[in-house]
Structures are given as structure tokens and as C-alpha cells.
């Protein structure tokens, strides 16, 4: 048994607090020794669920920088502590082995990922974005006005850059995505709100 050992030890800890008597338990001993709570000594940090748009409150119980338990925030008036199965499972993301440990790079034609550093990743992205931006810059458009004339107007678009933003990130991030996209010249900025 791999993971459950922790649970087993905890439970044996609980039952160890109960002194056996003729019937197998002793009420006074139970009351006196109590049941250890794994939340004892944890700091509580509220957060918000990352799934549907309910905005249910999460409460993370943290000890020594480690997540001990995650459950609903009883003080959040939306969910009053309740959580759906998705939210209730969120502690399994915190230390998931499935989460990549570094930025990953896949070269053209490659069949596997290569691990790269953050510096290298940012450098590669920025250089490529500058290259494409320069290469595909569209300075003007030709339009037909309401009176039927042809007119050259500014376009200022980097036609080769596109961005799929996100409903999965925070407002501040989402806002910076919009700002970033428009500043570098792409109006081709969409996200999964439509789907």
C-alpha cells in the first residue's frame, strides 16, 4: 500500500487514544485524550475554485509551506464551505507528478520534448515573436468608405501573430494578455468564451 499508509497511521493513532476496557472502549479515556486533528497548527489561506464560474471559496490548510488539506471556505457566502467533486479534489493538483518540472521545447520534427530553462524559453519566444512581427507587419488597409471611395487607412497589425487567451487565468493575467496582444499588434486575440 503506497499512499494510504498515511491514513492508516492516522487512524491507528486515533484508536490508540482509546483505552480498552471490558467492552473494548472507555468513554472517559476518549474524552480526555481526544482525537488529533490534522489541521492543528495549520494556517488557513482562502482561495477560489478553478472550475465552473461559481466562484466557490476554497480554504487551504497549510503547515510548513505544505498543503495539508483543502476544503470549502465556510466563510464564503456563495458556497458556505460546500464543494463539488472537482473542487474537492483540487489538493491532488498541488503536488501532482504529472505537472512538468521545467519549460519544455520541441524542435521541428522532433519526437520528444527537451527540458529547457526559463531564460531560454522566454528568449526563444520573444525572438520568434519579434521575427514574425517584423515579417508579417501590415501597415495599412484599403477600405471602401460609405460614399464608395477607396481609401488607404492605418492597419498597424502583425498579421502572423495570433493569441488564444484564457478564461482559466486571473483577471490581471487576462487583462495583460489583451494589453500584450494589442501592444505587439495583433487584434487576433480570442479565447474559449465562445466555445
Amino acid at each position: 500500500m503506497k499512499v494510504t499508509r498515511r491514513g492508516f497511521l492516522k487512524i491507528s493513532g486515533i484508536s490508540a487514544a482509546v483505552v480498552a476496557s471490558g467492552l473494548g472502549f472507555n468513554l472517559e479515556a476518549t474524552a480526555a485524550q481526544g482525537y488529533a486533528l490534522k489541521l492543528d497548527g495549520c494556517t488557513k489561506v482562502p482561495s477560489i475554485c478553478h472550475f465552473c464560474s461559481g466562484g466557490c471559496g476554497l480554504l487551504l490548510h497549510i503547515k510548513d509551506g505544505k498543503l495539508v488539506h483543502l476544503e470549502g471556505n465556510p466563510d464564503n457566502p456563495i458556497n458556505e464551505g460546500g464543494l463539488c467533486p472537482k473542487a474537492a479534489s483540487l489538493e491532488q493538483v498541488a503536488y501532482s507528478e504529472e505537472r512538468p518540472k521545467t519549460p519544455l521545447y520541441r524542435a521541428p520534427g522532433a519526437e520528444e520534448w527537451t527540458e529547457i530553462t526559463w531564460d531560454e524559453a522566454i528568449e526563444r519566444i520573444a525572438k520568434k515573436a519579434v521575427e514574425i512581427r517584423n515579417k508579417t507587419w501590415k501597415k495599412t488597409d484599403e477600405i471602401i468608405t460609405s460614399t464608395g471611395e477607396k481609401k488607404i487607412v492605418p492597419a498597424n497589425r502583425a498579421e502572423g501573430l495570433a493569441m488564444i487567451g484564457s478564461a482559466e487565468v486571473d483577471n490581471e493575467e487576462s487583462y495583460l494578455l489583451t494589453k500584450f496582444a494589442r501592444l505587439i499588434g495583433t487584434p487576433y486575440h480570442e479565447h474559449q468564451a465562445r466555445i
Partner: protein
Amino acid sequence: MMTKKKVFVDTSLCTGCKACSVACKAWNDLEAEKTQLITSYQSQASTTYNTWTYISMHEKYENGKMEWLMFKHQCYHCAEPSCLKACPVQAIYKTESGYTLIDHEKCIGCGYCVANCPWSVPKTNPELKKTFKCTGCIDRVENGIKPACVYTCQPGALHFGEPAEIEALAQTRLAEVKKDHPKAQLYGDNAMGGTTYLYLLLEDPEFYGLPVNPTVSSSLVVWKDWVQPYGIWLIPLAAAAAVGSFFTTRIINNANKSKGGDLHA
């Protein structure tokens, strides 16, 4: 002192979201299991040593009306539990809050409780040789927090509290639900001396695959109340008879000898 507690499972409000099962695993650090769909949206077939509570789903289509009923399974924490009675090493005990717990220091994983629970709730981990089941989140309850399943339930199908309050709520809900579901009934209040988990069912217990009138089985009564306390004395009795015979035969023989009697051997 912790007073007795009760949990009300209002199946009429349960949406079958399974958050209770997930929250139970998260709180108790239970391992996720590999499953597949069984029927409906149900993937967990029974309690296991890593799954202490789960939802079963039951579909019914009659006269053009569809019903999709949910049932939450976990340890009922009976007042007079069969498992406790069956346990040969007194590893199972009751708390003052009404919970039935397994002391894992003592538990030897023999599985006697597994076989004798009317709902087959406890399950033995063959590697650890320990038996596991819902603890009612005793560590939370004793520290003034609701059990993990009750705490997480969003649709409000689970309620935790003092017995009187819970029973009154159950009666109110029953009266309400009866209007639409004439077969609605409470379940658990009369079973096994009264269970800690009290249910509002929308159909007969059989519909959910539940024993209608769960009691301590007669086999367990025969075993634990007759055979074990009284039957066992036959052995010393037989042994005593043999010992008695050992002496009486010799005494009588000696008497016979002195009378000039004959010896068999």
C-alpha cells in the same frame, strides 16, 4: 463530553455529484482506485478499503415518468453493530458520539466484521491485514467540524447534528416528499438498534438493493450468543469426563481387583 450525533441523508436532494466520495478520500488520504462505469453514471460498485463512501444510481421509468434516484453508501454506525459483535479481537468499539470505529492496533483483518455487516460495509486490506471503513470523520466531529461528506455537500442532501434536531428534520422532509413520492420512507431508524445515518428514501429499500429490515443475523446470534459462550464448554466437559474416567476406571478396577475381578486388557 461529546453527545450523540446523527447524520440525515436526504436522498431527495442528492444530485449524485459524488463530492462526498471525493471529499472523504481527500480528508482521509485514501488512494484513488481504477474503475470503470458500471451502470448509469456510477463507477464505484461497493465500499472498499480505499472507498468509504460512494453513490449508487438507480433509474426507473414508469408511466412516462423518469426517476433517477441516488443513494449514498457508507458505514451506518449502528447502535448495535453486527461488526462489533462479530469481531473476535474486540477491535471494534462505539464512541459516545455514536460512531462505530475500528481500532487498527487491534484489528487483525480477519474479516469477520466484513462478512457480518448487513450492508457489507467494512473491507479488509489484504496487504496490511487491517479492515477499513468510514470513521464518521471522528477526528473532525470530536473537534467540532462536520464530517467531510456532510461538509462538502452542495445540494444540501446531508445534515449533521443532534439526534432530536435531525429526526425532526427527517420527519418534516418525509411529510414534504410524500406528496410526490408516496413510497417515501425513513430508513435506518429502526435498524440495528437505530443507525447514526438516517435516510430519507423515495422508494422501498429493495429498490436501492438494501436489506428491508436489517437486523443482527440469526447466524451471528447462534454463533456469538450460543455457540461461543455456551457451546465451547462442551470441550472442557468432554475433557473433564475423560479425566474423570481416568480416575474412576482405575478406582473401580482396583476395587474389582481386590474383589478378584478380571481385567479387560
